[in-house]
């Protein structure tokens, strides 16, 4: 059997940790091969070894059967290996063409860049693989999905035969994900081979041929996707049974906690994004806000939490007006907030985990007294959160930056839930996390609900909305356009509502 890439018994150690322990992955010509593992399982390390960023302590890499020694990314490039990074490596003010040729510019005899040739080459590659990229557009003007296609073009332009996709769908909308899948299929048709790093099982089932699973740095094995199912993949990855459907009792909503009346909020460009929104949330229920990104969800959350001022309308918490109060006032009146962007809002990455745990409470006893911090109390609290919420960190003194995304998120959730707020706002709480962490977080949210807390869940993943919510409020164009029960609706109906279609009362099939 001909393999284009073989990584055999790779072992990579970092001080105090074995990131890759005896991992083997063999990529066949013309297949899409998934590399599946939890956050922090060692997927990225393995690919960085292949890409020449790390040198393995043991094991060997073969390209088309020949043993190679990849000591830097240029060698990987020369061998036809290209990487599409999760975080794009693009120069924003440059055009697509400039970005793609950067580092390997075609020149005329005089040494001047041959822009015409570059444009033509790029257009040609773009057409061949159906990438639909405008070579003259500026990066800052194009969508995230197109930026990713520019990254793909970059590797193809450099003659990549093997493309590594590092969690490519994390930043994409559902439509863009579908387009990406199409692109991957056409790449294969043209004879390329693909390694897809992911922890999204659906994607693997949909597009991959084979799947190699790693768990805690160890190679678990390779399976044919056609002969497996999501349950088996999940348990291979996590090492135990995983429940996709979160167990929960019927909700018992009690008194009203949050009331929003005719709320209007403008975004940074002074455009109304929330346009007279009404919403009510009771203790002991989870309300999921379903909607396509950009319909005012972020502005709604920011208005409730005091990060953005409301133009008009009223927000009441436990019957007290909290409209346009400062974030601290809102927090103190009983709101917890798991922010959508955990790196930007949720954590001070250069602070230790301990310091992050008291981000909103540092000025209170016992964490400080007369403005002097009590580090013992702070780290004791952090220790407690770490234990209760299974945050895997070397210590409470470790910088938040050093933790994996899932553990960062667990720390934030621990911090917010532990304050026991009456209203917990969870914005995309499981974005980018693996199934194990997702399961844990969903369980915690439901636990809080059962304790009588009101929970507002905002998510772009319909699965999550359907699975966790007791009530679903569909948000479209700055308003709540429908209020449905998850057991009385379908993903299809929700999808249409999210797109702005009207549904007749009581008849989900009659869509106008």
């Amino acid at each position, binding site marked *: 059997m001909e393999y284009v890439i073989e990584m055999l018994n790779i072992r990579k150690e970092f*001080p105090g940790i074995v990131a890759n322990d005896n991992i083997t992955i063999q990529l066949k010509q013309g297949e899409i091969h998934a590399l599946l593992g939890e956050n922090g399982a060692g997927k990225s390390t393995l690919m960085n070894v292949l890409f020449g960023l790390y040198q393995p302590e043991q094991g060997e890499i073969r390209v088309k059967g020949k043993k190679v020694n990849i000591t830097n990314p240029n060698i990987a490039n020369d061998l036809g290996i290209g990487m599409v990074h999760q975080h794009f490596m693009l120069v924003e003010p440059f055009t697509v063409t400039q970005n793609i040729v950067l580092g390997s510019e075609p020149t005329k005899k005089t040494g001047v860049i041959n822009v015409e040739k570059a444009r033509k080459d790029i257009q040609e590659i773009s057409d061949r693989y159906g990438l639909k990229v405008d070579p003259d557009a500026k990066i800052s003007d194009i969508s995230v999905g197109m930026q990713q296609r520019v990254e793909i073009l970059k590797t193809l332009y450099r003659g990549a035969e093997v493309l590594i996709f590092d969690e490519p769908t994390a930043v994409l909308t559902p439509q863009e994900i579908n387009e990406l899948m199409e692109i991957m299929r056409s790449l294969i048709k043209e004879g390329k081979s693909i390694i897809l790093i992911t922890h999204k099982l659906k994607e693997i089932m949909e597009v991959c041929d084979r799947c190699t699973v790693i768990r805690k740095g160890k190679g678990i094995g390779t399976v044919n996707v056609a002969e497996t199912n999501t349950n088996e993949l999940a348990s291979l990855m996590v090492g135990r049974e995983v429940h996709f459907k979160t167990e929960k009792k019927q909700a018992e909503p009690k008194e009203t906690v949050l009331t929003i009346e005719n709320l209007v909020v403008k975004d940074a460009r002074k455009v109304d994004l929330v346009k007279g929104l009404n919403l009510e949330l009771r203790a002991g229920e989870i309300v999921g806000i379903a909607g396509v990104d950009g319909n005012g969800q972020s502005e709604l959350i920011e208005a409730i*939490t005091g*990060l953005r001022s409301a133009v008009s309308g009223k927000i009441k918490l436990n019957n007290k007006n909290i409209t346009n109060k*400062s*974030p*601290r*006032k809102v*927090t*103190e009146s009983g709101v917890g*907030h798991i*922010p959508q*962007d955990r790196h*930007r*809002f*949720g*954590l*001070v*990455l*250069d*602070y230790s985990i301990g*310091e992050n745990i008291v*981000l*909103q409470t*540092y*000025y209170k006893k016992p964490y*400080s007294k007369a*403005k*002097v*911090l009590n580090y013992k109390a702070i780290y004791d609290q952090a220790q407690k959160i770490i234990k209760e919420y299974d945050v895997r960190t070397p210590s409470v003194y470790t910088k938040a930056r050093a933790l994996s995304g899932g553990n960062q998120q667990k720390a934030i959730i621990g911090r917010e839930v532990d304050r026991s707020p009456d209203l917990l706002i969870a914005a995309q709480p499981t974005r980018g996390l693996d199934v194990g962490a997702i399961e844990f977080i969903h369980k915690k949210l439901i636990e809080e609900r059962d304790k009588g807390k009101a929970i507002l869940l905002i998510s772009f993943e319909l699965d999550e909305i359907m699975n966790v919510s007791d009530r679903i409020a569909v948000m479209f164009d700055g308003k709540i356009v429908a209020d449905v029960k998850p057991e009385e609706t379908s993903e299809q109906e929700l999808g249409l509502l999210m797109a702005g279609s009207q549904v007749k009362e009581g008849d989900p099939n009659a869509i106008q």
Partner: protein
Amino acid sequence: MPSNRLFTLLVPVVSVVMGLIAGAIIMHISGFNPIDGYSALWTGAFGDAYTIGETIRRSAPYILTGLSIAFAFRTGLFNIGAEGQVLVGWLAAVWVGLTIDAPMYIHLPLAILAAAVAGGLWAFVPGILKAKLGVHEVIVTIMMNYIALFTTNEIIRKVLTSGQTTTDTIAGSASLASEWMQSITFYSRVHYGILIALFAAAIMWFIIQRTTIGYELKSVGFNQHASRYAGMNVSKNIILSMVIAGMFAGLAGAMEGLGTYGNMSVTAGFSNLGFDGIAVALLGANTAIGVVFAAFLFGALKEGAGEMPTGAGIPTELVDIIIALIIFFVASSYIIRWVIVRFKKEGK
């Protein structure tokens, strides 16, 4: 990977050593004997009680300007304006020293306080511009340096004197001079200011490491979004950070005005205390204790430099070159880190 703490210590030490070695090479190339040169430097800085006294005197303002820049830096701001803050602090201290008549236990603290307040106010301007309008503090502080230089000159000429270039000497009740310290250092100009400087270092450490104020300041410096989310007032913290930094620099002015000189003169150019403070902060890894050590090194180098022309015939410019080389090596600490890591790997 070796522990970070060891690294922060090792990098400046190695930088200094490399700077000294490079200086020796330059001396050698220029036809001087490096050993003679360095022993003259040593004698000039620590040779006898007098030079030790002078070295300490020189170090005090370096500690304070170093603290000023380090403090701002720890909270995510670049205070390039320490120079101007020194000048206004100096002027304020001398002004109070000249015009107020009060017993020492009121007069001296008042003069010191005036220096701190003046420095703080001078830094308040870039602080509020940054906080409210997003104007970059580097631009504003640089401009504020020039405003400070020419304004203080003009005030000395027109307000504090009638057309003279130097003010009268301040009243004894506002002086930091210490007969006791002078007597044990053969009447050097050393003064009580060093105690203020060391105390200020302790204050900086305490604020940054132990208080909720420092927690907020650092948090805002690291991540404004998360700080706002956590309920902190970002604007207030930016302004506060600049003001505290300015107060440290203002105190450095008091060192000169109330201690070393007892007056203030019209100058054509900057004192360089504020600019050297940038190097001190960098060398001290922006920590209070590091700044103290770095300031003593700077004080010693500058003081010892005076001996090099007479003791070994080496021009003082060469000492400036050596200092510049040390800063160069600190600034390129990445290279030094890399060298150390390489060295450790091979040693294994």
